[in-house]
C-alpha cells in the first residue's frame, strides 16, 4: 500500500494557484475514482493537500486534476509547484503540518483544528480507512505532544495579539474590561478586534473625525465618544488604545497622575501604537500603569518568534521519534496481516489504541 501526500502550500504556490486547486464538493469521490483506497483533502487558506493510500501508483498529475476547480484548468505547466511525499516522508510532513512547523506563522495552532475537521469530514464520507485513521490519530497526538513539551506556541507573534496577551496577563478575564480607543486607525482597529475576540464588550471609540469614530464603533460593537470628552473616560476604563496623528503627546505624566491616584486599586494598560507617540514615556513610571508603544509590542512579537524558532529542533526530534515508531507499527501490522491473511489491526482496535 502506498501512503502519500500531494499538495500545494504557501511556500511555493501563490494564493491564486491555491484557489485554483482548492478542490470541490466532489473531490473525495473523484479521488476514490482515481484509485485511492483512502483519501483525505486538507484545504486551508495556506495549503491544499491530499493524503491518500492506494495499491497502484497514482501520478501527481492525476491528483492535481482532481483538485482543479474547473476541468478547463491547465494542469501540466503547474505541476512543478506541487510537492509529493511518500511513505515516511508523508508521515513526517503531516506531523510537521499538524504541529504548526510548516505554517506561515510558525507554531500556530489553528491548523490542528482544521486537520481534525478535514479528518472528521473524510471519516463521515467513508473516505478514510485504517491507514489514514491511524496516521491522523497519531498526527493529533504528536501535535499535542509538541505543543506541551516545547515552547513552539509560546507568546504572540503579531502586534495585536501581543497587546491582547499582555492585557490578559494584567486583567485575566477581559470580559469585564472597559476599553477606550482614541484614534480610529487601521492598527487600532486590528487591536480592538483582537480584544473583542477575547470577550471585551465595553468599547468606546473617539476620533477627531466623529464619522470615523461612529463607523469603527459600529463595526466593533462599541459606542462613539466625542474627541473632547475622551480624557474624562480615563478614570473608568481599563485599557486605552491610542493611535492619533498628533504631533505632540496627548497624555503626559502630570495629566494622568491625578486620574491614577483616584483608581489606585485598578491597573491601567495603555497601548500606544501612534508614531509619533501619543503618550509620554514617563507615564509608565506611574504606579499601576503599564505603557506599551509600538516598538515594545514589536520587540515582544519578535522575541516570541525567536523563541518559537529556537524550539524547532526539539519539535523535529519529537516528530522523528514518532515517524520511526509509526512506520514500524505500520510494518508490524502489514506483516501480521500477511501471515494470517487478515488485516493486521482492525479499525476498532486502532481507534481504541490511538484515541
Amino acid at each position: 500500500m502506498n501512503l502519500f501526500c500531494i499538495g500545494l502550500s504557501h511556500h511555493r504556490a501563490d494564493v491564486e494557484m491555491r484557489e485554483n486547486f482548492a478542490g470541490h464538493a466532489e473531490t473525495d469521490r473523484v479521488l476514490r475514482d482515481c484509485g485511492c483506497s483512502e483519501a483525505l483533502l486538507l484545504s486551508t487558506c495556506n495549503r491544499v493537500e491530499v493524503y491518500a493510500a492506494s495499491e497502484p501508483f497514482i501520478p501527481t498529475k492525476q491528483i492535481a486534476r482532481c483538485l482543479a476547480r474547473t476541468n478547463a484548468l491547465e494542469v501540466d505547466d503547474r505541476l512543478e509547484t506541487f510537492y509529493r511525499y511518500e511513505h515516511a516522508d508523508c508521515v513526517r510532513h503531516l506531523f510537521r503540518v499538524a504541529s504548526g512547523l510548516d505554517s506561515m506563522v510558525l507554531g500556530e495552532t489553528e491548523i490542528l483544528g482544521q486537520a481534525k475537521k478535514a479528518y472528521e469530514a473524510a471519516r463521515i464520507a467513508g473516505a478514510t480507512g485504517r491507514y489514514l485513521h491511524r496516521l491522523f490519530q497519531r498526527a493529533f497526538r504528536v501535535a499535542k505532544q509538541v505543543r506541551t513539551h516545547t515552547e513552539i506556541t509560546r507568546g504572540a507573534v503579531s502586534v495585536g495579539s501581543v497587546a491582547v496577551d499582555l492585557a490578559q496577563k494584567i486583567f485575566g478575564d477581559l470580559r469585564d474590561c472597559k476599553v477606550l480607543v482614541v484614534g480610529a486607525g487601521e492598527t487600532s482597529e486590528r487591536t480592538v478586534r483582537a480584544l473583542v475576540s477575547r470577550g471585551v464588550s465595553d468599547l468606546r471609540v473617539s476620533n477627531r473625525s466623529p464619522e470615523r469614530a461612529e463607523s469603527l464603533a459600529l463595526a466593533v460593537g462599541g459606542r462613539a465618544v466625542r474627541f473632547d470628552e475622551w480624557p474624562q473616560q480615563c478614570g473608568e476604563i481599563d485599557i486605552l488604545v491610542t493611535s492619533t496623528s498628533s504631533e505632540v503627546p496627548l497624555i503626559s505624566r502630570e495629566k494622568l497622575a491625578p486620574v491614577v491616584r483616584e483608581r489606585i486599586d485598578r491597573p491601567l494598560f495603555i497601548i500606544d501604537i501612534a508614531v509619533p507617540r501619543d503618550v509620554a514615556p514617563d507615564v509608565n513610571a506611574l504606579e499601576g500603569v503599564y505603557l506599551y508603544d509600538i516598538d515594545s509590542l514589536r520587540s515582544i512579537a519578535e522575541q516570541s518568534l525567536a523563541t518559537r524558532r529556537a524550539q524547532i529542533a526539539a519539535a523535529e526530534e519529537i516528530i522523528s521519534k514518532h515517524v520511526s515508531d509509526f512506520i514500524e507499527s505500520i510494518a508490524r501490522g502489514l506483516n501480521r496481516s500477511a501471515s494470517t491473511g487478515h488485516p493486521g489491526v482492525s479499525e476498532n482496535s486502532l481507534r481504541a489504541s490511538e484515541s
Partner: protein
Amino acid sequence: VDRYLLIISTVCFLVAIAHTALEMRGGTFRPMRFNFFAVGLGFVFQTAFLSIRGHAIGRCPITNLFEVVIFVAWSVALFYILVGPAYRLSLMGAFTAPLVVLLQLFALTAPIDHPHARRTPANSWLEFHASISLVAYGAFALACIAGVMYLIQERQLKTHELHSIFYRLPPLSDLFAAITRLLWWGFGLYTVGLISGFFVGEPLPWRQIVCAVGVWILYGLILQGRYLRWFAPKRVAALCIIGFSAALTLLWGITFTTPTHTP
C-alpha cells in the same frame, strides 16, 4: 525515626524544586501535576512526623521552636494543597516548595529541638489556640508566596522584559484576588486563635501577647489598607512579604505550649 520522616519529606520538596528548575531550563514546564504530587507526598511525610511526635509527647507537637517551624511548614503545604488547585494558580507549587524546604532545613540543622524538661498536663484550649494560630501562619505564608509571584509578574510587565516565567505565571488580577482571599483566611483563623487564647485558663507571658496582637494588627492594617484603597496592589503584595517575614521572626519571641520552655 521521626527525623527520618522529616528528611524524606524535605527530599520530596527538594525533588519538586529540582523538577521545576530542570523543566523551566528546558522551557517545557507543565505546571501543577508533578509539583502537586511531590508536595502532596512531602505533606504525607510531614503529617506522619507530626503524628509520631505528637503521640510521643502526648500533645500537639508544638512544644519547642523545632516543632513549631515544622508545624508552620506543614500548614504552608496544607494551604497549598487546599488552595493551589482551587485558585488554579500555576507555579504556586514551584514557589511553595522552596519556602517549605527552607523552613525544614532550618529546623533540621539548627540546634532548636530541645527535649522537654518535664511533662505538664495538656491544656486543650492552649493547644487549640497555638495550633490554629500556626495554621493561620500557613495562610499568611501562601499570601506571601502569591505576593512574590505578583511582584515578579508586575516587574516584568513594567520593564517590558518578558522572560520564560512570564508566560507561566498567573495574571496580576488572579494573584491579587488570591492574596486577598488568603489574607482573609489567615486573618480569620488568627483572630480565632487570638480569642481562644483568653480561654487558656493560665496567665500568658506579656511578650507573647504583645507579639500575637502585633501580628494581628499588622495583618488587620494590610486588609484595611487594601479595602480603603490606601495601598496599590503592588504595595499590598510587598506588605504580605514584609508581614510574613515579621510574623515568622516574632515566633522567636513566643512561648510555646510547654510553659517550661522558652526559646
